[in-house]
């Protein structure tokens, strides 16, 4: 029954997130023809790092795969997924308003309570990472393009792994506070900061699987989750 409760507590966040991501993914596909039309108008003679970036973007966009990668998997999809990973991670926490004392009076260990919450959230995150991404190969024929399902799956998996780290970060932060807002703000701030760092250091590169990043994310997820369990067990309610 804990699963059902978790679902009830997270379903709106999940459904809204899914709707937003699906729209964003569809928009990515359907704006491609327009982008292609605008390509020739991009000035090619801007100097400096900004010019470099613009030329890079143009080169990428010429190829549909590059376009999808840079617009969806590196940018919009990643940002939305990270945002909702954090929103899901701060859902269903134990607060006085949400019947925390009742939950804690049940014959369930705190580790199990957190485990169910984490598992529901990660399952929902999995769907958020994969379903919109799979929409792209499905919709691409509509604009006379094609995108391989295998490629979408692989990149969605990468999205999921990195987003999970933010999910468990939000989970850990939520065990410190009595409200969902402060952990959410803090996690968002950290995510934005890390995003900027990733951009400066060009961690995401087209055509390369970021193994280092994936490994770090996976390890971080485990450590953060473990921290969340320990902190929850030491708290007084």
């Amino acid at each position, binding site marked *: 029954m804990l699963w059902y409760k978790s679902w009830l507590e997270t379903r709106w966040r999940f459904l809204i997130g899914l709707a937003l991501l699906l729209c964003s993914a569809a928009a990515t596909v359907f704006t491609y023809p327009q982008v292609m039309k605008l390509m020739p108008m991009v000035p090619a003679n801007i100097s400096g790092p900004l010019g470099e970036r613009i030329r890079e973007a143009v080169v990428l966009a010429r190829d549909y795969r590059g376009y999808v990668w840079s617009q969806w998997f590196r940018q919009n999809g990643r940002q939305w997924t990270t945002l909702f990973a954090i929103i899901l991670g701060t859902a269903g926490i134990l607060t006085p308003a*949400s019947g925390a004392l009742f939950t804690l009076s049940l014959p369930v260990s705190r580790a199990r309570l957190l485990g169910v919450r984490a598992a529901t959230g990660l399952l929902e995150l999995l769907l958020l990472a994969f379903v919109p991404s799979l929409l792209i190969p499905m919709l691409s024929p509509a604009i006379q393009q094609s995108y391989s399902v295998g490629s979408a799956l692989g990149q969605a998996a990468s999205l999921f792994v990195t987003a999970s780290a933010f999910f468990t970060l939000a989970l850990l932060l939520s065990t410190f506070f009595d409200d969902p807002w402060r952990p959410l703000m803090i996690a968002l701030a950290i995510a934005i900061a890390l995003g900027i760092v990733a951009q400066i250091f060009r961690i995401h590169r087209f055509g390369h699987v970021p193994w280092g990043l994936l490994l770090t994310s996976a390890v971080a997820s485990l450590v953060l989750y473990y921290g969340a369990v320990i902190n929850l067990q030491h708290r007084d309610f």
Partner: protein
Amino acid sequence: MVEHVIETSDLRKSFPGIEALRGLDLQVPAGSICGFLGRNGAGKTTAMKILLGMVRPTSGEARVFGRTPDVEVRRRAGFVSEEKDLYGYMTVEEMIRFTAPFFPRWRADLEKKYLRKFNLPPDRKIKALSRGMRTKLALLLALCRGAELLIVDEPTSGLDPAMAEEALQAVVGHVADENMTVFFSSHQIAEVEQIADRVAIIDRGRIVMSGALDEIRESFRRIQLVFEGDAPQTEFRAPGVTHVRRNGRVLTLLASGAPDSIVDEARALNPLSVDIVPVTFKEIFLESVNTEE
């Protein structure tokens, strides 16, 4: 054999800036209805939360069913918090269906009985229930789980007299039919006197009095001495004198046990009059929690 369902020994709990419990020694025997009385902020809720594992003690021991509070204790005990915490977004029916599977000894017969008796609308969301209905639902959830111990924090707070009586009746009726111990906190003395057979009075984080309610009531007397001049400052050496108050020419003693030796000692001071008056439990309580440290 464990005879005390609840037992604490020098239990202490400090929060930042507050010492909630300062060495609590509590024993609640099986089968009793024990009233846990104290002023607001005396430490009642903290003690209860420790018994259920929601709060960890700073030092000292707390045992329920002979165990440190853990998952197993919560399987055999029911808890109703002061705020009657429940999930506002669930309906009454959903709340019951959510709770029942946690308890292998869930009593479906009692569930039907209390749903009917309390008149709870199964499809109404809990956030739309009145305070009284929420209390009844919380009691239902605690009583149907086949528990051996019921811990209730302020069972009738926020309830009008009729609802309060219904809540107490449910508890008493349940105890009558099942073999159960009840440990409830209250600052309504009348309510405690009505249904408790044992009491424990907590003041500033310590137990200042505990035992069978009838025995406590029968053993206390107020002895009033009036003097010609100002009341003397003597210490009373006779055993049983618990509180002494001087007010001009009047010396008032609260004494437990046989008053004979006290009266003898009192007479030796040459008072104008010695009066022995019975004392209500309310007065015993007020005296116990008003002593300056």
